[in-house]
C-alpha cells in the first residue's frame, strides 16, 4: 500500500493530478470511506485493503467536472463502469487519471460479522496480505479464510484485466469460482409460484432507501425517473405490495444493457436483498437473445437495447 501512496504523492507533487479519489481509513478496522485527497499531507489517511469495495467510478462524474485531473483508483471490475460512463458522456476522460489498482477480491463485512462481534482489529486484508484474515474481538479472536469472506460478486469475478487505465499498481487475482448465471438458472428452474414467493420474500424487506440506485454507476441520472414529478412515478409508499417490484424491475430495466454487473447494489443493500439477480437476469437474456455483451468492455459498443436485428426473437418466445 505504501507503494501506491508514494505513487499518488508523486502524481500530486509533480502536478499530473490535482487530487486523488481513493479511500480514507475508517474509525473501525473495516469501514474505509471513499474520499478525495487534495494534498500529500492528506494522503497519510489513504488506505487500500480488502474492505475498499466501493466502486469509485460514479464519483468521477462530479470529480471530473473540477479543475485539473483527478486520479482515481479503480479495481479491474470498476473500470467497466468507468468505460460505460465514458460511453454515456457522463465523465470527462480528459480530466481523469486512472490508476488501475490490483485486487484479490473484496471482503464482505457482513460475512465476517456473522461470527465475529465486537471487532477491534482485523489484519491480513491488504493486497499482499495472507490467505487468512485474523479478527480480534472483545469476545475472543477469530480466523477466516480470505476467500470465504469475499463479497458475492467476487465469486463471479470478470477477470483481472483493467479495461481502461493510465497506469496500474499491484497484482490482481481472478477470484471467480462460480458460474456467473448459476443463481439465475437456479431460479429459472423453479416454478412460477416458487419464484414469486422468493422475490416476494426478498423484496418485502425493501425499505425504499434507494441505496442500490444511488450507489449504482449505471443509475447516473441527474434526477431519477422515480423522483421526476413530471412522470408521476414518485413513490416511497413501501406498502408491501407492488411498489418495490415496480421500482426494482424498472431500475433493472433502465440499466439493462448498461449494467456491468459490478454488484454494488447487492453490496450496499441494508437488508441484504440480492438485487444483482435482477440485473443478471437481463444480462443473461441479452447474451442469449442478442449475443454476448459485456457493458463497459468496449466504450464504443452499441448497447443491445438501442440496437436491433430484423430477425430478433419475438417477445414471449423462449429461446
Amino acid at each position, binding site marked *: 500500500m505504501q507503494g501506491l501512496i508514494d505513487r499518488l504523492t508523486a502524481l500530486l507533487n509533480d502536478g499530473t493530478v490535482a487530487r486523488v479519489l481513493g479511500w480514507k481509513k475508517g474509525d473501525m478496522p473495516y469501514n474505509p470511506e471513499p474520499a478525495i485527497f487534495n494534498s500529500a499531507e492528506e494522503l497519510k489517511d489513504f488506505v487500500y485493503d480488502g474492505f475498499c469495495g466501493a466502486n469509485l467510478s460514479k464519483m468521477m462524474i462530479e470529480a471530473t467536472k473540477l479543475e485539473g485531473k483527478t486520479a482515481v483508483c479503480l479495481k479491474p471490475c470498476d473500470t467497466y463502469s468507468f468505460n460505460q460512463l465514458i460511453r454515456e458522456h457522463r465523465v470527462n476522460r480528459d480530466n481523469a487519471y486512472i490508476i488501475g489498482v490490483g485486487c484479490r477480491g473484496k471482503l464482505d463485512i457482513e460475512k465476517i460479522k456473522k461470527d465475529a462481534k465486537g471487532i477491534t482489529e482485523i489484519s491480513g486484508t491488504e493486497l499482499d496480505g495472507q490467505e487468512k484474515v485474523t479478527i480480534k474481538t472483545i469476545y475472543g479472536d477469530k480466523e477466516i479464510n480470505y476467500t470465504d469472506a469475499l463479497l458475492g460478486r467476487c465469486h463471479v469475478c470478470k477477470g483481472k484485466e483493467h479495461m481502461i487505465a493510465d497506469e496500474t499498481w499491484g497484482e490482481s487475482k481472478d477470484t471467480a469460482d462460480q458460474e456467473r448465471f448459476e443463481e439465475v438458472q437456479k431460479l429459472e428452474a423453479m416454478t412460477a409460484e416458487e419464484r414469486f414467493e422468493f422475490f416476494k420474500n426478498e423484496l418485502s424487506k425493501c425499505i425504499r432507501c434507494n441505496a442500490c440506485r444511488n450507489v449504482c454507476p449505471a443509475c447516473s441520472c441527474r434526477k431519477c425517473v422515480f423522483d421526476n414529478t413530471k412522470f408521476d412515478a414518485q413513490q416511497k409508499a413501501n406498502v408491501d405490495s407492488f411498489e418495490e417490484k415496480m421500482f426494482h424491475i424498472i431500475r433493472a430495466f433502465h440499466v439493462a444493457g448498461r449494467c456491468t454487473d459490478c454488484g454494488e447494489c447487492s453490496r450496499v443493500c441494508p437488508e441484504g436483498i440480492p438485487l444483482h439477480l435482477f440485473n443478471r437476469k437481463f444480462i443473461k437474456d441479452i447474451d442469449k*437473445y442478442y449475443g454476448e455483451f459485456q457493458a463497459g468492455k468496449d466504450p464504443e459498443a452499441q448497447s443491445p437495447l438501442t440496437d436491433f436485428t430484423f430477425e430478433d426473437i419475438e417477445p414471449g418466445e423462449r429461446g
Partner: protein
Amino acid sequence: MSVNENGEFRPLIVAFCCNWCSYAGADLAGSSRLSYPADVKIIRVPCSGRVNPMFILRAFERGADGVIICGCHPGDCHYSTGNYYARRRMTLLFSMLDYIGVENGRTRVEWCSAAEGAKFSKTMNEFCEKIASLGKNVRLGDLRCKD
C-alpha cells in the same frame, strides 16, 4: 377487473395500439363489425416504440389483468424502426416478469397491420380468453387497488 352479477370474472385489459397499423386495424375490425370483448380498452400511442415498460407496470399496478401491445409488423413501422426497439424491450420485460413469478401470458405483443381487422379481433378474443383463464392479477397489483 370486475365480477358481474353472475359471479363471472371480467378481466380488465389494456391494449396499447400504435396509431398507424394496429389502431387502424382496430378501426377496421370495428367497421367490419368483428367483435371482441368490451374488456379491452385501447390506448392510442404513436408507435409501439413509445410504450414505456412503466406504462405496462402502471396498468398492472392499478388493477389491469392483462396488457397487450400492438404495433406494425417488423419492417412496416411507420417510423421504420420503432417496433424493433419495442420488440427487444418487451422481450426482456416479459422475460423478467416471468422470472419474478408473474403468470406467463398476462402480457403479449402482437403485430397487426391496418389491413388486419380480422387478426386484431381474433387476437383480442384469444387474449381475453387467456387472461380469463389466468384469473385476477394478484401478483402485480397494488394492494390499494382493491375493488
